[in-house]
């Protein structure tokens, strides 16, 4: 795959991440946007104490991270690629933690959180790491 295609891929995945994280951030501040549907989960995850870090929604951290990755894609230097990979790999680590919390502590699932943690974040990590490995000295 060409670097141009990889770069476009990173940008697209980061945009998808902005959309999902943006929605989760919006929902955090507008809880009436949710309705309980069959299958439960409701807002248990969003309302749990793990949904915020120092009073800031975790989703907002995700949103800022995706925006940063987009900016780094535009910048596109060797350092920018390394930073983008660092952000993506951090997101993978934190996603593993969040999935573990949902499975074993909160005992409820947030569907859009899982879309982010199981699809978007790993994809972003793969693409950004791929780009770093192709870095020209």
């Amino acid at each position, binding site marked *: 795959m060409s670097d141009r295609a990889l770069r476009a891929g990173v940008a697209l995945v980061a945009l998808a991440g902005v959309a999902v994280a943006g929605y989760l951030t919006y929902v955090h501040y507008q809880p009436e946007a949710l309705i309980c549907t069959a299958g439960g989960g409701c807002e248990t995850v969003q309302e749990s104490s793990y949904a915020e870090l120092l009073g800031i929604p975790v989703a907002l951290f995700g949103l800022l991270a995706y925006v940063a990755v987009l900016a780094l894609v535009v910048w596109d230097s060797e350092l920018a690629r390394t930073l983008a990979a660092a952000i993506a790999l951090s997101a993978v680590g934190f996603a593993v933690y969040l999935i573990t919390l949902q499975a074993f502590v909160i005992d409820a699932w947030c569907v859009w959180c899982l879309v982010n943690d199981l699809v978007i974040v790993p994809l972003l990590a793969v693409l950004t*790491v791929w780009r770093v490995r192709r870095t*020209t000295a």
Partner: protein
Amino acid sequence: MPPKPRKPPSRKESGNRNLLIAAGAAAAVVLVLVGASLLLRGGDSNGGGGGSGEVTGIQEASTLLDGLPQERAVLGSPKAKVTLIQFEDLQCPICRRYQAEGFPGVVESYVRPGKVKLRMVGMAFLGPDSEKALLYTLAAGEQGKLWQFQDALYANQGDENSGWVTDALLEKIAKGLGLDWAKLKKDADGAVTLQQANSMADEANQRQIQGTPTFYVQVGDQQPYQVNPSSFEPSEFASILDDALSS
């Protein structure tokens, strides 16, 4: 002898080195974030005393609702022209939020003056705790305190399907409200209560209710129509109910 010039790193070596730096930075960031998440988190905003043994909201339920006419799942004057129908699941945290934020205003401004009556349609789609909560709430209606029981149960709502609807909790609420606990238990298992619950489930299915809370308004004997408040602010319901009253 002059030192040999170092070869510049190959593309692969450069890439691998940068990858190591990225991985190292990521590990440090994850450690900080996970540490912060575990050490600095606040309390859960889900639910109340279901698991802690303490029961709250009894006094508030009584203050808000005692003295209002109620006939099982209907609260308010039977002559009230407008009915606000609430499809709800007693495990639903959003229903709990409506109960705390919107419900008291509706009761004080519209039910108590006799303008509107409320009809509860209990659903139990979130799990086993929902079913037990609904049956006992309906059974409280046999003793004329369905709405106080429902209100107090919401105040003590626990995490979904965590087993929070215990006999101990139900007994404390019942006795706090002055209900006959033995009769409540018997009625909760009885045919009348079960038939009511099934009837409510049928109504929810007929209307294809997808989630809770869902609100309908009925004016007189006309067909009920769905309303979608954009928030649980009292003003939101005031607007909806004033429209219905003026129609």
